[in-house]
């Protein structure tokens, strides 16, 4: 007598298994994730040219629907859409309609009436992108740019792209994600992607108060002790620690957090010698990472930033392609 749970992997795929929304890395096959990485790789080439635009989304309208403030992620989506030749509309909803009492559905219906083709959504509620994908009219693609603590799949995939370009493949990699796992949508998306792409082991490192309940069920080994957790690791992903975490009885102090979980040169030495250091940004120097490490030779943090645009171009192009294949079928 259960209801039909909407399989998150099904809602983002067309009947013939192509991407039509990009909401989460959970449940997507290795083939799809690899196709995303390959497509992004192909766009990296176009980024070095003097003319950076490709005409894949010419005539399409992309709406950046940010219910939560974010300058960085929104800018990369905007740039990615422009480089695909799309028209882009930026809506800073955090400060407009919803504060006047308009519901999420009303906002959506209004935007649909303007014949948009794609929504890039960031929202503070987990499952918001999912909800929007369920309720938009067919042929409108939804890209999740971060929903609550649930998922941030484009960030996770640009991290995967960075790892693959640095390490070649995922097969023998041990990856540690360090810090505030509890509140991190990026960590959840990374754990699913890494497992699907065949990483040898995924670890999460943090104090119990920042590790969510039964995190191991997602496919990650939990460590409280960073020195143990970093042993034999090939990739270290540091997460940003929000300062307000000190207030809700989650952490004693920044100093103790840094001492236990800050990535210092000493701690980095415990990982494999060729380990790379990543961070989704923006970084808190001296809170979760030592400056010498952030700027050091093992850091690929700025490469992550450059990979952000081709990755977002890739998922936008693929989702639009999936929507169009569906549309063509209906017309036949």
């Amino acid at each position, binding site marked *: *007598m259960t209801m039909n*749970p*909407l399989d998150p992997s099904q809602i983002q795929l067309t009947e013939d298994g192509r991407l039509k929304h990009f909401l989460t890395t*959970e449940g997507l096959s290795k083939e799809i994730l690899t196709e995303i990485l390959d497509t992004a790789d192909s766009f990296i080439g176009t980024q070095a040219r003097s003319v950076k635009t490709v005409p894949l989304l010419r005539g399409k309208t992309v709406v950046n629907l940010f219910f939560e403030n974010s300058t960085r992620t929104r800018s990369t989506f905007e740039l990615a859409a422009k480089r695909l030749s799309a028209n882009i509309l930026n809506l800073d909803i955090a400060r407009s309609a919803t504060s006047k009492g308009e*519901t999420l559905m009303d906002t959506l219906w209004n935007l649909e009436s303007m014949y948009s083709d794609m929504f890039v959504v960031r929202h503070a*509620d987990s499952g918001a992108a999912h909800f929007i994908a369920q309720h938009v009219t067919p042929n409108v693609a939804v890209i999740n740019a971060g*929903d609550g603590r649930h998922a941030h799949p484009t960030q996770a995939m640009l991290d995967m792209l960075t790892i693959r370009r640095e390490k070649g493949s995922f097969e023998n990699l041990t990856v540690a994600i360090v810090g505030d796992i509890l509140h991190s949508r990026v960590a959840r998306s990374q754990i699913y992607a890494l497992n699907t792409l065949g990483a040898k082991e995924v670890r999460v490192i943090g104090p119990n108060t920042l590790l969510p*309940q039964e995190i191991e069920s*997602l496919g990650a080994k939990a460590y409280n002790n960073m020195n143990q957790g970093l042993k034999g690791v090939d990739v270290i992903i540091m997460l940003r620690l929000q300062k307000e975490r000190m207030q809700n009885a989650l952490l004693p102090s920044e100093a103790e957090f840094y001492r236990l979980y800050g990535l210092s040169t000493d701690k980095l030495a415990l990982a494999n010698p060729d380990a790379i250091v990543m961070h989704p940004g923006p970084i808190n120097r001296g809170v979760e990472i030592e400056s010498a490490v952030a700027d050091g030779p093992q850091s690929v943090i700025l490469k992550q930033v450059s990979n952000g645009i081709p990755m977002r171009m890739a998922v936008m192009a693929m989702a639009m392609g999936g929507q169009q294949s569906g549309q063509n079928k209906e017309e036949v």
Partner: protein
Amino acid sequence: MKIQPQHTICIQGGHVFDPSENLDAIMDVYIENDCIVALGKAPEGFKAEETINAKGKMIFPGFIDTNAFLSEPGFTQKGTINSETQAAAQSGITTLCCTPNSKPVLDSSAQVTLVQDKAKQAGFCKVLPIGALTAGLNGEQLSNMHGLKEAGCIALSNQETSFKDGHVIKQCYHYAAGFGITVMATPLDPALAQDGCMHESATSTQLGFAGIGESAETTALAQHLILAEETGVKLHISRVSSQRALDMINAAKRNGLNVTADVALGNLIFNAEDCAGYNSLMHVTPVYRSKQDQTALINGVNKGELSICSNHLPQDIASKMAPFAASEKGISVLDSFSSVIFSLVKNKQLTLEAAIASISSLPAKQLNIAAGVIKVEAAADLCIVDLDASITHTESNMVSGGKNNPWLDQPLSGKVTHTINNGHIVYQS
């Protein structure tokens, strides 16, 4: 709907089943005015003005629901006393305890009387209001408890709102105990529950939600049990959600505490894993917990430890059209209430004896309600059920104003064909 005055009814050939009276046989039931006047053999000179053929069907006591939100006053966009009690009658419910969290809150005898009048006017089932334990459900100031009891409240409760502190709970219980008022509580420590919207579990981690751990229920429950013991108040724990909480209640009973409890029907059917996919119909309070909790609660019903309430909470479409945590809580249960319970019987999860007792004689005993029994001279509150028939509720055939029913479009087994309330046929399929 207007009730047709009926003076005598004979229900022929039905299988009368009431475990509390050891009734389990085919016999005729004779009703005169609002009373059952004979079982089996017609009283001398009885002339039936109306005869119901119940061959092949079961006759149960009219059901009792100990917790339903009727939406009125204040939320008529979600449902009305008329629509919601009609939905209840279609499920064979003849006595329903409505919650105090209307707008205005049921914290004055005037409001209580208004609800009773509207329910009487509708005529579908007897409505016994649960009054507010604190003024305006503010969790701080005692309500006019004695006045509320006199106005007809069956119990008093603070519903989902939290108390300012333990002192207020103690004072409420102390005051209520002096007047023999039953209090209902749904324990939840707000600090431990925080901004959680589902059970803390692998699923909450997967979906990215803050979870409400079992300890949010059990630590608060310990406080309520201890204060009930200290003050001597009659405490009814409304909507137990975890195995541990049920164990604690049973232990308190063994130690002599006068405490009773019920469980919401949804918590017998769903568990935290059903929240996967962000189905906003699974956003409820109390939250659906683990499979193990679900099984323990079903066992609790089978053992007669828990009665079953609907926890009916109708919502308009807009309230559920939002991302999970932002959607309004609750499900619309009354239309499907008894069919879902009969389906549990059919799946052999509940025995028929326990299922019927849990919605008739047990809640009657728990809350001291004079109903829920089939016997001569008792009120003629009955329902006739075809256990072999199946019923499917759809958005269009549902009666409740809230279409947030998680069983829509699913065939359920067991169909109420007649509901008789105080000797009046208030529903006939």
